[in-house]
């Protein structure tokens, strides 16, 4: 088992390395001239050249990559002398539009995204799996048809649409909630919840629809398995047959999907964060596109990708715990 984990971690590190290079390389071949973009309003050719040197953009792509990579471990100083900017390790680059290290910007925005993701994750997982199991057990009856139908609608509606609709009705028309204004939960838990409840629900509806359908089909497949028939033939109560035998086998593929979806959500929900003005990674990414800041985009892309790769690893290891057949001996 441990050899399996070690091997997977090694592979993961290798993937991260390749990925970081790919991301770095892709952004560097964009036509935008970073030195010019970071130069500010009063811009002379001289400043541009100075910036270019400070950012290391005059060096080859490989050297730039090496500087970027080593900065993660040992930090980096941009420029020399008086005007030098120190970015301490771990340094994911320096944002010249915001005059801050990229990592700090990201860490600043991370909580809102993490809270949004985790809250929605809990809701959609419980809701989606619960509805899916219920629907499977009521197969062909009106409850099943209703759930399947509603989930199809939920699945096909775009998030900005649902988001705008709930804002219009809940906040503007019925005035059930104040306008969203994000605060950290430890500062004002009530306002935090008031802000988060709608985005959680909107995000969860989208995913819950998918998980309901996935769970339903998984459960139906599992319920037709021979070992379920064996469990019934043993005289087990239907509750045990479903809750122990069917769920354990049927939910295994859902673990995979859920792990990857959570990782994806942690990378930021661009549309919802924008609609509900949440200061998360998604809105940071959008603003860095509109007001171009390449170093922030590289940072966010890398962080998001890392989440997904790590989630993949965790899912694989979880899988081995759930299913003895894939457990290495």
């Amino acid at each position: 088992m441990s050899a399996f984990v070690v091997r997977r971690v090694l592979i993961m590190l290798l993937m991260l390395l390749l990925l970081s290079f790919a991301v770095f390389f892709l952004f560097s071949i964009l036509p935008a001239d970073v030195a010019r973009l970071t130069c500010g309003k009063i811009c002379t050719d001289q400043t541009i050249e100075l910036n270019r040197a400070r950012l290391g953009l005059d060096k080859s792509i490989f050297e730039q990559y090496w500087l970027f990579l080593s900065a993660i471990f040992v930090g980096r100083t941009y420029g020399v002398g008086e005007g030098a900017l120190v970015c301490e390790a771990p340094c994911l680059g320096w944002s010249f539009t915001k005059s801050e290290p990229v990592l700090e910007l990201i860490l600043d925005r991370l909580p809102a995204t993490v809270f949004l993701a985790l809250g929605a994750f809990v809701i959609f997982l419980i809701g989606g799996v619960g509805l899916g199991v219920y629907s499977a057990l009521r197969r062909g009856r009106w409850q099943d048809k209703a759930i399947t139908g509603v989930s199809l609608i939920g699945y096909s509606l775009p998030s900005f649409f649902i988001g705008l609709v709930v804002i219009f009705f809940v906040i503007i028309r019925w005035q059930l909630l104040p306008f969203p204004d994000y605060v950290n939960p430890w500062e004002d838990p009530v306002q935090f919840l008031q802000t988060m409840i709608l985005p959680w629900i909107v995000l969860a509806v989208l995913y819950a629809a998918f998980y309901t359908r996935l769970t339903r089909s998984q459960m139906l497949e599992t319920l037709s398995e021979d070992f379920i028939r064996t469990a019934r033939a043993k005289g087990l109560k239907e509750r045990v047959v479903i809750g122990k035998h069917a769920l354990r086998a049927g939910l295994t593929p859902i673990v995979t999907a859920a792990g990857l979806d959570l990782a994806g959500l942690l990378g930021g929900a661009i549309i919802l964060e924008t609609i509900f003005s949440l200061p998360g990674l998604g809105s940071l990414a959008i603003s860095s596109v509109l007001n171009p800041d390449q170093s922030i985009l590289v940072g966010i892309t890398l962080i998001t990708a890392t989440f997904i790769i790590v989630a993949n690893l965790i899912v694989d290891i979880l899988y081995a715990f759930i299913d003895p057949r894939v457990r290495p001996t």
Partner: protein
Amino acid sequence: MSAPFLEVNDLRVSFRTEDGVVRAVDGSSFNVAQGETLAIVGESGSGKSVTAQAIMGLLSRRSADISGQVVLDGSDLLALDDDEIRRLRGARMAMIFQDPLSSLHPFYRIGDQLTEAVRVHRKVSRKEARNRAIDGLRRVGIPAPEQRIDDYPHQLSGGMRQRVMIAMALINEPQLLIADEPTTALDVTVQAQITELMVELQKQTGTTLIIITHDLGVVADMADHVCVMYGGRVVEYGSIDDVYYRPAMPYTQGLLASVPRLDSDRNARLDPIPGNPPSLINLPSGCVFHPRCGRRDEVRGDLCVTTEPELLEVAAGHTARCHLTAQVHAEEVFGAR
């Protein structure tokens, strides 16, 4: 013959599907005496497995319409509610299935699956249940059961898995064991092991055994009585000698002639039943076997096409559902007209 231990009367099971009503079992009647072995023989779609599942109460009453009677030791199982029949399953009657790999839960150790079977019906400690599980494994010939009990199903061979299934079925000493194609998924040599094991265990425990199979060879090895099913009906029932040496129904005759045999002089050709088994949604009129029957011409008129024959006694304890045998029988009794 002792009083029937299990009595199935006019069992009918149908499923509503999008394509129409599937009449999986359409009038199945037979008896099994205590301690004897009944083989239900038929090809796919004959209704033999559905009959077994109906006896065990494994068919969901939501999806299947079930009528008739299944009387086990005096009480009608079809009249019981879900929970009452559940208490009998695994305790008084148990079942083993064709594919032991898919029939065992892949994620649980075989020990867990065995102890679960004990503890659902008996209030015993975990330790006691585990001891019973080990004993059960030993009894079905699994070497080193103390170690094997902690294996997962995928770590065992096919034959060992089927032994585990048998151990699990017998762990609460049921009075009735239904084995649905227990050796079909196994290799020939392993098949022989399992067949022998079942025969021996039955001798030891006196369990009444219903074996469901398409393999006429396995039947010859194990059964006291044989019940031949076709198109959802019992078409012939009798002692093993009756059915093998004096088959009355042309389908049974055809089935016996279709099997390649090791012992007979090898003819150049087998003598198969022509055509294909009927669709259970659109059963033929009259006798369900008439489109494939080679002896239809011997029956007077178009009786076979218009009228469904009854299951009639051709000799003591030997019944067949066939106009021809009925006609021959009538001629014997009343003299040829």
